[in-house]
């Protein structure tokens, strides 16, 4: 039987192959795995514990747990879900000993934060209230090149860095790492409704940053 490779179009086969390489002690495979998940793990840990250095310790402890557990992992969830569950357990244990860095109340999106500056819409006493004064730009034709552009990526990364911690974690998990909303809710201990609002606000802010960039 042909050996499945990392480039395999079948994700389940690719994951099985990766797991086999990890169990066989393949260092480049492990290094790539760490590189892929480290930033998200750190972001998640930071919502449970105070301070970046404690969060870094939690992430390292979680990786040691992953290394130890590799042989026991049964593949009932995906590898990344399993890694994340180890991290969350570790972070919760640590977070319970200290005060949680982000109070639970702060994980809920609060107050109104419009996606778009309200001044861009017609007022209640004008004709067509709530409609655009001037249309937003049509990015359609240039969209493909836009997304490839290094400068665009720099703007996107800057905008994400400026987001509040929980919004940052949600947009990273959903749109960079491809976690499902269920996985995000479980990892951050937030409701589905809160997850949706956090993602919406994060994406809306990044869109605004891109719009400012393109309008310049």
């Amino acid at each position, binding site marked *: 039987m042909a050996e499945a490779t990392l480039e395999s179009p079948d994700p389940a086969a690719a994951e099985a192959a990766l797991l086999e390489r990890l169990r066989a002690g393949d260092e480049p495979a492990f290094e790539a795995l760490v590189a892929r*998940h480290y930033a998200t793990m750190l972001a998640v840990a930071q919502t449970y514990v105070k301070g970046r250095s404690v969060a870094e310790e939690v992430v390292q402890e979680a990786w040691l747990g992953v290394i130890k557990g590799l042989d026991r992992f049964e593949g009932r969830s995906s590898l990344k879900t399993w890694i994340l569950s180890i991290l969350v357990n570790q972070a919760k244990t640590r977070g319970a000993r200290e005060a949680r860095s982000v109070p639970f109340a702060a994980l809920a999106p609060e107050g109104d934060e419009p996606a778009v500056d309200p001044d861009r819409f017609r007022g209640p006493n004008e004709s067509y209230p709530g409609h655009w004064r001037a249309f937003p730009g049509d990015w359609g034709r240039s969209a493909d090149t836009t997304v490839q552009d290094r400068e665009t990526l720099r703007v996107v990364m800057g905008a994400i860095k400026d987001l509040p911690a929980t919004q940052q974690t949600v947009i990273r998990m959903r749109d960079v790492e491809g976690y499902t909303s269920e996985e995000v809710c479980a990892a951050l201990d937030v409701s589905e409704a809160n997850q949706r609002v956090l993602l919406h606000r994060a994406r809306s802010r990044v869109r605004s940053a891109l719009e400012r960039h393109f309008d310049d």
Partner: protein
Amino acid sequence: MTESSERITCQEVTELVNDYIERTLSSHEMALFEQHLNFCDGCDWYVDQMRVTIAAVGRIEPAEPPPEVRDKLLSAFRDRSRS
């Protein structure tokens, strides 16, 4: 199908856009949303902008761990393989 007199505004579109993309709108809201897009180029472009934004975010490479952390974890991984 009769057209409902109920309408949503452009401003409401900008607040519902991610629920639309995520397919978490109710079927009634979905119908109102799509009806709006049918006659409003500005909102059609806005939805596109949000999709471009999501695609651009998806191209970010996750930040790698600092070299000393990577080395520490690699050595723990190596020890496991030896044992």
